[in-house]
C-alpha cells in the first residue's frame, strides 16, 4: 500500500493530490453528517456517480487527444428519449433498442470524428454544432417526457447486487476496460501521442485521423450508453435530460487532473473527479445547504486542482 502510494506520488503527483481531495471530502462528510455513513446513502452516492462516470470516460479520452466533445449532452437526451419512446414498456424491444441507440451514438461519433479529423473543423465548433442539431432533433421528436421503459430495464440503473448497486459494478467493468485500452493498447498510446503533439505523432507514423475518429466514436458510444442509463434510472426519457452533461463531464475531467491541452492525465483522475462532484452534491444535501453552494465549491475545486497542476509544471 505504502509503496503504491509512493509510486503514484512519484509518477503522478497531480493524481495523488486529486485523491487526497477526494479523501478529505469523504472524511469531512463522514464526520459531519451521521447519515452519510449509512449503507443506504453510500449505495445512493455510487449510483448517482455512474451517469457522469460513463460519459466522463468518453470525455476524458477525447480531451486526452486534444479535442473536446460538446455534443454529449444532447446525445444523452436523444438516446434517452428514443429508448423510452420506442420501448413503451415492451420487453421484447429492449435489446433491439439498446443496439439501435448505441448505433446512433457511434454514428454521431463517426460524424464528429470525420468533421474534426478529415474536414479540419475545430472540435469545439464541430461538436457544438452537432449538439444544436441533436437537441433540435430531440425536440422535434418530443417536447414532453415520452414513453416508458420496462421494469426489467430499470434494473440496469436501480438494481442492487446485495449492498452494491449493479450500475456501480457495471461502471467498474467499463473503467477497467478503458483503463486497459488507454494504457496497454496501440490506440491508447496513439491518443496520448496525438494529444501531446499532433505533428510529432504524425511524423512517427501514427495514423492521426483514424485515431481521432475512434476517439469521437468512443465518446458518442459512451454518451448513448449514459442516455440508456438515465432512461433506466428515471423510467422515462426527457428531452432536456442531458442538459449540462457536456460541461459537467468536462468539469469532472478537469478536476481529475487531465489537461485541456491534451496528452496528460487519464481516466484514473476522472474517477476521482466524478466521485468528488457526486460527494459535493450529497454532502450539501445532507447538511441542508443551498444547492447554489455546490456550484461555488465545484468552481473552487476546479481552480485549486488546475492551479496545483500548473504550479507543478
Amino acid at each position, binding site marked *: 500500500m505504502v509503496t503504491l502510494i509512493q509510486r503514484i506520488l512519484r509518477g503522478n503527483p497531480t493524481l495523488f493530490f486529486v485523491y487526497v481531495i477526494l479523501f478529505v471530502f469523504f472524511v469531512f462528510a463522514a464526520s459531519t453528517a451521521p*447519515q*452519510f455513513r*449509512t449503507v*443506504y*446513502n453510500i449505495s*445512493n452516492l455510487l*449510483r*448517482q456517480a455512474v*451517469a457522469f462516470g460513463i460519459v466522463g470516460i468518453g470525455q476524458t479520452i477525447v480531451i486526452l487527444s486534444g479535442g473536446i466533445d460538446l455534443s454529449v449532452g444532447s446525445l444523452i437526451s436523444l438516446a434517452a428519449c428514443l429508448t423510452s419512446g420506442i420501448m413503451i414498456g415492451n420487453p421484447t424491444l429492449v435489446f433491439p433498442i439498446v443496439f439501435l441507440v448505441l448505433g446512433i451514438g457511434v454514428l454521431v461519433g463517426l460524424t464528429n470524428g470525420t468533421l474534426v479529423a478529415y474536414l479540419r473543423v475545430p472540435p469545439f465548433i464541430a461538436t457544438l454544432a452537432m449538439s444544436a442539431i441533436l437537441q433540435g432533433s430531440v*425536440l422535434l421528436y*418530443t*417536447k*414532453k*417526457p415520452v414513453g*416508458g421503459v420496462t421494469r426489467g430495464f*430499470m434494473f440496469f440503473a*436501480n438494481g442492487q447486487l446485495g449492498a452494491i448497486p449493479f450500475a456501480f459494478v457495471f461502471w467498474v467493468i467499463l473503467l477497467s476496460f478503458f483503463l486497459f485500452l488507454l494504457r496497454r493498447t496501440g490506440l491508447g498510446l496513439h491518443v496520448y501521442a496525438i494529444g501531446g503533439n499532433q505533428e510529432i505523432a504524425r511524423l512517427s507514423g501514427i495514423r492521426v485521423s483514424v485515431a481521432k475518429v475512434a476517439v469521437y466514436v468512443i465518446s458518442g458510444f459512451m454518451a448513448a450508453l449514459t442516455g440508456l442509463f*438515465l432512461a433506466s*434510472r*428515471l*423510467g*422515462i426519457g*426527457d*428531452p*432536456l*435530460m442531458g*442538459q*449540462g452533461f457536456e460541461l459537467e463531464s468536462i468539469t469532472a475531467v478537469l478536476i481529475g487532473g487531465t489537461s485541456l491541452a491534451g496528452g496528460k492525465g487519464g481516466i484514473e483522475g476522472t474517477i476521482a473527479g466524478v466521485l468528488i462532484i457526486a460527494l459535493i*452534491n*450529497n454532502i450539501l*444535501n*445532507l447538511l*441542508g445547504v*443551498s*444547492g*447554489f453552494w455546490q456550484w461555488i465549491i465545484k468552481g473552487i475545486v476546479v481552480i485549486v486542482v488546475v492551479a496545483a497542476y500548473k504550479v507543478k509544471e
Partner: protein
Amino acid sequence: MKRVLVVLCVGLLFWIVLAGVALAQGWVKFLDSDKMLVDTSMYAKTPPWKIGFSNASISNSWRVFFARHVEYEASKHPEIAEFYVTDAQDNPTKQLADVEDLLAKGIDLLIISPATEAALNPAVEKAMEKGVPVVVVDRKVTTDAYVTFVESSNYQMGKIMAEWLAEKLGGKGNIVMLSGIAGAGPAEDRLKGAMDALKNYPGIKVLEQQYCEWSPVLGKQVMATLIQKYPQIDGVWADSALQGSGAIEALQEAGKPIPPVTGEDMNRYLKMWKEMGFEGVAVSFPTWQGQVAVQKAIDILNGIAVPRYVDCPRVIITKENLDKFVRMDLPDEFFMDSRLPEEWLPKR
C-alpha cells in the same frame, strides 16, 4: 308458456345483474375519483417531525414566491423539528438524487415539486416504498404512488384565458400564442386548455404558437419577430405574465396599439396594464399552493384524512378589481395573489 316465462325471468335477472355490476363499477370509480379522501392513519406520528422539500428550482420569480410560501408555512409549525430544502436546478436527474439524499436523512414526509412530470416517478415511488408519505405540489407525477396532489388546474387557467380573449375579440380575429417551457407540465396543460376552448370559436385564427421559456426577455424577442411576420395581430394569449409582459414591451417599442393580452397576477404585468390601459385579464396560478402543501403534510402526519387532489382556487383579475391587486410601490417580479406577510416577502 311456462318455459317462455322462465326464459324471460332468467333474461331479466341477467340484465339486473349486469346493471348491478355496471353500477358497482361506477360506484368504485366514484370512490377512486379525485374527490376521494385518503386515510392517512398509518402515517400518523408523534412530533417532532423531519420534513423534506424537494424543489424543482427557484429559477423564476414565481418559483421564488412559491418556495417562500412553503418555508413560511413550515416556520409556523413548531412540531416540525427539521425542514430540509433541496433545489434541483430544473434537472430531473439531480432531483432524483436529491430525493434519495433526503430519504437517507430519515425524513418522515416528502413534499416534492417535480422538475418534469413522469421523470420523477421513481423518486416518489422510492419514498412511498420506504413508508414515507409524499405530497406532490404544483406539477404532477404520472404514478399513483403519492398521498395527495396539490395544484391549481393549469388546464382551467389556459382555458379561462383563451375564452376571455375570444370573447373580447367577438369570436373573430388573428391571435398568437406564447407558451412557457416546452415539455413542462404547466405550459402544456395551459396550452391544451386554451386549444380546447378555441375549438368553440372557429372565427379565431391562431397565427403561431411559440415557447418563450417563461422569460420576459425571450417573450419580447419572440413577439418582436411575430410583429414583423404578421401585419395583423388582434390578440395575444400568453400563458404567463412573464413572457406576456415582454410581449407588451415589444408591441410598445414597435409603436403598435396594444391588443388584448392575457397574463397572470405578476405585478409587472398589472402595472403595465394600469399605466397603459390596454385590455387585459390576469388569471393567477396561486403561489400559495406551496403553503397548502405544507398544511396537507401536517394533516398527514397527524393522521387526518386528506383529499387525493386539491385544486387551489385561482383569482381572476379584470378591469374592475385590478386596483385591489396592483401595487405600484412593489417590485415588478412580485406575484400579487400572495398570502405572505410583509416580512416574508422576498428582498428586493
